């Protein structure tokens, strides 16, 4: 009797490999665009004391919150608890409120961590570093969370599985919106 074809026996450049590769290309493109914006404004942004402490956490947070949000929405859509044509429901509104609150709270904590680093290691009192991620967090989420909601519902309505597509989408758009929001927040403050 022939053995079933296992993953190990399938070719090296199989479907999994191709899927991972294509999603990484999307993610890489978003990352390079965000990096180019960062490099263009290095003197204004990266040279702020403590900015390199905020940056990885800030970029990570956007992906974590929006990916979880998209994943919860997808589960709800597949279970038919969420109607893709109805946005004003308890579950969606609860999800929106929670995602927004989490983003603002984590941004504030990141700002405080950077402030503490400046205070204890650089002996510098720089309050702007607390408000910068906070304001940028509000701006970035005002864009990213509705965008994630719209994209998830749209993809589901078009017959795609949002679980497979939202990860790279969120990480690439998240980086660009995060860096743009930091620059806007810097201009405002």
């Amino acid at each position, binding site marked *: 009797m022939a053995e079933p074809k296992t993953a*190990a026996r399938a070719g090296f450049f199989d479907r999994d490999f191709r899927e991972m590769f294509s999603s990484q290309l999307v993610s890489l493109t978003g990352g390079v665009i965000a990096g180019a914006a960062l490099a263009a404004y290095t003197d204004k942004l990266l040279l702020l004391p403590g900015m390199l402490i905020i940056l990885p956490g800030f970029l990570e947070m956007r992906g974590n919150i929006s990916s979880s949000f998209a994943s919860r929405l997808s589960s709800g859509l597949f279970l038919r*608890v969420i109607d893709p044509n109805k946005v004003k429901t308890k579950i969606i509104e609860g999800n929106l409120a929670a995602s927004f609150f989490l983003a603002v709270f984590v941004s504030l904590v990141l700002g405080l961590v950077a402030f503490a680093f400046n205070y204890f290691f650089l002996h510098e009192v720089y309050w702007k570093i607390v408000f910068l991620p906070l304001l940028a967090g509000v701006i970035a989420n005002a864009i990213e969370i509705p965008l994630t909601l719209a994209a998830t519902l749209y993809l589901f309505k078009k017959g795609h599985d949002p679980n497979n597509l939202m990860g790279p989408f969120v990480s690439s758009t998240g*980086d660009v919106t995060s860096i743009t929001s930091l620059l806007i927040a810097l201009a405002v403050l």
Partner: protein
Amino acid sequence: MNENRENSAKKAAERRAREKLYCTREECGNVLEKTFHAAHAHKRVVVTRHLPGKLERLRALPRKHFHPLQHELHKKHKLSHKTLFYVKEYGPHSNVAGTIIKESVKILLLASIVSSLGGFALEHVKAAFVAIVPLVVLLPALNDMIGDYGSIISARFSTMLHEGRVRRDWWKNAALRKLFLQILVLAIFTAALGAAAALVVSHTDFAVSASVAFKVFAIALVDAVLLVTVLFAVAVVAGFYFFGKREDPSNFLIPITTSVADFGNMLLLALLVTVFF
């Protein structure tokens, strides 16, 4: 008279809903509040405002416990685990936002703070780092890429554990070896591609010499190869640990590997910048 008849019909429908768990829209009439679709049963599952019987008990259970009732409902009524989970977490009378915030805030804070700790190291070599424009361009892409590989390794290894395709002698497992090699090849290729893109993007503002280009490529490749290897080891060790404790590794491995990826990436970048420049 009619009113009494209507009331008794309504009560009967409610009782049926409680007893049967499933009932059709016609049977249950006005008591319906939510309808769920049980994928396996191909039936409409009807839930009243006060979830009938066992579903209401399920919703009220503390979330830390995986109660046998959940398994019983899955087996007996062919309700998927996802549906039961959703009913338990986000059923009627639950505070959706509160539940999400309570469950997510700790792990999000931990992940963000761990990621930021790596930034401490890079902050110390900031002057050297920001002077090399291609590395600044590459930073978000490299962070994303390593984090994504951490998620992929975690998700795939968790699935392998659940399916019983990997045992303690994991190094003998062909599927796991293939996964590691696939991720390694992808990491090398995407790191090289990212480095090339960063050099092209930054060439207008930064004089890219052959020596700088070589160093940027070397930093990207060493960073990707080392971190993918570390992430793989972390996922395997932590995966066996949580699986042995009868926990679902999927819930722990992704936050752990993405945090390790971010922290390790910043730390390694700081180290490599010091070594190469």
